[in-house]
């Protein structure tokens, strides 16, 4: 591979000239710095999205009660006069909560942070294939975020047509009173799309072309596998969204009628475009977390991942199937009902690879040597909550049942079980697990556990009862359920859910404190604190520019834990089999008898 020579010369000149502050911390082309930049910005957006959710729950838990005095002053009379949230502001809150969480928190946390951090380090590359494109991919995101944030301050307020922006509600300000806000929403997401596309381009190219010698496809760690598959989904799905957004922008601004019936447009076309992007998007938001969880569970139970090949095949099948299930979002949309059954079948079939993954994770824990540290706890929480999110999906996959629960809180419960219980817990596992590689120090284990237990408890208290709201018929996105007599009895449950959300939000302060405190005062990590096998952990923490002191050679798969012929309970990918002995490798001490490389 051509990169090998480049790295060797790199290693030869051990001293790098120090980059200036701006090149090192701001306009950096180093994938690890870009990962950290994504991390800090995405966590800020996660905080913002969380605060918006708290406001939404304030209104639902205590309808019509003014916001507490200490935050009331923030909001002008166009949003919350006297602290009472207005219906139009409520719609903006719901819309912007989802928008920030999906596009500015979860996607950057998954692909931006871990795509950048893990891919080159796990496959043994010195950086991404296109470092400058990588830098552009990051810097587009704060620009898009700024445009999105600006929409709160324009006349008419931020977009309020839901994150799905169904036309024609979203295609003309006359229906919502939101003119500029909706345009900014569209522009921001069009801009942000380039960030994802450029990032994905890099990930795909890097994985295909820049693997270290010996890193065959089936020796690639599952973290990188999942990010590779995700990158393909991004590369193919984001242009579809961008196309749709541009058409909607034309409807908004220059009077076209792609989605407006009065010009012979077709409102359902928007839904087809949006969900044709939207369902792969759902998997963009969960596949990387599945990869992180696989890494953490195998490493922390000191056991090879159960069924590595089926795990990879399941990832690939989910990615393929995700393109043919979009219609299940549209069972009640007026789409030809004869199409319904097609989408029922494809949708239930996608449950099969998901089930395979769950069984394999459980299989990995079986007869393992499970170390209960914070990453493992979050990873197992991911599995247990993903089971709930997956099974609740069966209810709406069955189209007749979906008639009743569509657009109710049952859907809200389901999607939050997948995206918070799944993705967010997976991200927590990932951040704590790879924090030492990013910053050279460990996060505090005690605080990590307290944060985990409280989050797990409050999370379930908040979201599990939402299934019940849905089954009782409570619709999504309604400002005040008490307008309906049949929903008035649910107010105590809504209040309970809101209080649980507040507690869940407060608990995140522990995580924020732990994260920031450990930057400075955490235990120094060393290169391989979790005794893990992947190439990532052979580098110093944090790795220098160029990553590997010398180009590693890969001898085996990434999950050779507790191998009977090796004394230690791990066997890094780059440690040569015993016959070549000696060498400067410090990690494992293979037994004298020669072991055939696999």
């Amino acid at each position, binding site marked *: 591979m051509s990169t090998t020579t480049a790295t060797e010369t790199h290693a030869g000149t051990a001293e790098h000239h120090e980059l200036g502050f701006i090149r090192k911390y701001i306009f950096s082309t180093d994938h690890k710095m870009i990962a950290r930049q994504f991390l800090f910005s995405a966590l800020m957006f996660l905080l913002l999205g969380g605060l918006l959710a708290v406001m939404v729950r304030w209104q639902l838990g205590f309808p019509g009660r003014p916001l507490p005095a200490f935050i009331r002053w923030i909001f002008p009379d166009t949003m919350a006069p006297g602290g009472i949230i207005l219906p*139009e502001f409520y719609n903006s809150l719901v819309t912007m909560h989802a928008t920030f969480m999906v596009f500015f928190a979860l996607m950057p946390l998954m692909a931006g942070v871990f795509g950048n951090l893990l891919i080159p380090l796990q496959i043994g590359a010195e950086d991404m294939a296109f470092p400058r494109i990588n830098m552009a991919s990051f810097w587009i995101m704060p620009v898009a975020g700024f445009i999105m944030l600006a929409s709160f301050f324009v006349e008419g307020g931020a977009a309020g*047509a839901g994150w799905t922006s*169904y036309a*024609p*509600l979203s295609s003309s300000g006359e*229906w*919502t009173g939101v003119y500029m806000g909706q345009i900014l929403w569209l522009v921001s997401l069009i801009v942000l799309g380039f960030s994802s596309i450029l990032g994905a381009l890099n990930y795909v190219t890097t994985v295909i072309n820049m693997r270290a010698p010996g890193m065959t496809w089936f020796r690639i760690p599952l973290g990188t596998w999942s990010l590779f598959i995700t990158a393909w989904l991004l590369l193919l799905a984001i242009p579809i969204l961008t196309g749709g957004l541009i058409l909607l922008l034309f409807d908004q601004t220059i009077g076209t009628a792609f989605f407006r*019936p009065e010009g012979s447009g077709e*409102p359902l076309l928007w839904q087809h475009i949006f969900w044709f992007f939207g369902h792969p998007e759902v998997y963009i938001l969960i596949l990387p977390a599945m990869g992180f969880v696989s890494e953490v569970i195998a490493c922390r*139970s*000191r*056991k*090879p991942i*159960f*069924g590595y090949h*089926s795990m990879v095949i399941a990832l690939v099948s989910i990615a393929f199937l995700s393109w043919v299930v979009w219609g299940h979002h549209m069972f*009640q949309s*007026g789409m030809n*009902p004869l199409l*319904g*059954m097609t989408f029922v079948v494809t949708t*239930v*079939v996608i*449950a*099969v690879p998901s089930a395979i993954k*769950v069984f394999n994770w*459980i*299989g990995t*824990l*079986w*007869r393992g*040597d*499970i170390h*209960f540290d914070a990453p493992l706890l979050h990873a*197992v929480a991911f599995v247990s909550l993903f*089971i709930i999110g997956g*099974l609740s999906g069966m*209810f709406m*996959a*069955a*189209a007749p*049942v979906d*008639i*009743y629960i569509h*657009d109710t809180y049952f859907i809200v419960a389901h999607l939050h079980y997948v995206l918070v219980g799944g993705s967010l817990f997976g991200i927590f596992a990932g951040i704590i697990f790879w924090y030492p590689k990013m910053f050279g120090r460990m996060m505090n284990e*005690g605080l990590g556990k307290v944060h985990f237990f409280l989050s797990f408890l409050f999370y379930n*208290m908040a979201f599990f009862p939402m299934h*019940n709201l849905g*089954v*009782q018929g409570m*619709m999504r996105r309604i400002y*005040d359920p008490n307008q*309906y007599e*049949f929903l008035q*009895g649910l107010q105590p*449950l809504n209040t309970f859910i809101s209080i649980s959300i507040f507690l869940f939000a407060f608990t995140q302060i522990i995580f924020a404190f732990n994260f920031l405190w450990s930057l400075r005062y955490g235990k120094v990590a060393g290169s391989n604190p979790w005794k893990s096998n992947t190439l990532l952990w052979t580098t110093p923490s944090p790795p220098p520019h160029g990553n590997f002191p010398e180009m590693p050679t890969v001898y085996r798969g990434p999950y050779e*834990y*507790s191998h*009977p012929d090796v004394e230690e*309970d791990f066997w890094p990918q780059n440690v040569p089999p015993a016959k070549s002995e000696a060498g400067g490798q410090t990690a494992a001490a293979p037994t004298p008898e020669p072991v055939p490389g696999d």
Partner: protein
Amino acid sequence: MNFFWRTGMVLAGMLTVVIVLWVITDPSWLDLSWVMPDNVVSTFGPTLDNLWLVILWVTGIIFFATEIVLLVFMVKYRHREGRKAEYIHGNNKAEVVWTAIPFVIVMGLAFYSKGIWDEIRDPSRIPTDAYPINMIATQFEWNATYAGADGQFDTGDDFISLNALHIPVDRPVVVQLMAQDVIHSFFLPEFRVKQDAVPGMITPVWFEATQTGEFTMACAELCGLGHYTMGGTVIVHSQADFQDWLAEQQAAAGDD
């Protein structure tokens, strides 16, 4: 490890206190009616609820089985000094079994669903004797439009009943959904009916009431700032009462 168990115990204790306090102060939330609310008033409603219940059983059993196995493994295989994990890479037989079984289960559910879906939604199976009503949704009102005395729509004597859908009991009705501005969703919780009303489209939805009374009509699709107020009532009359109401309204409309 000590810390882990201690924290666990403290949290379990806190959880118990929270639950006990809540139950004492307001026991109503314990009514987690996982079984559908028992209020269904349409002919196909019970079939639909039954499918829901079947899925609840299937997923419920899978849920408890997997979560219990997960918990047992967590306790049984927790780290202890001097023990090494077993070096197992997988098992092809197991993979085949846990691919095949979920596949059979979900396909079974899919084809069970198909029968019910077709019964409710197949356009060729809308009862031919269904009483026709045009429902025109606008921000934020439901305009239930009835044919005048001539039994024909668009002949000038149609009349509108605002936010109140009057229907006869024990006779299918077919509602032709239309929307004037944005998408709305016609939701009758007790009838287990939900169908979007899309501007530029006419979408039929049929159902048959099994008892008289007043029921809820709601909008289930975000349609603007007044979305949450877009409610109404379904009034199910006995057939004779319905004819009387209809005649009265038609007479009034004819006078205009």
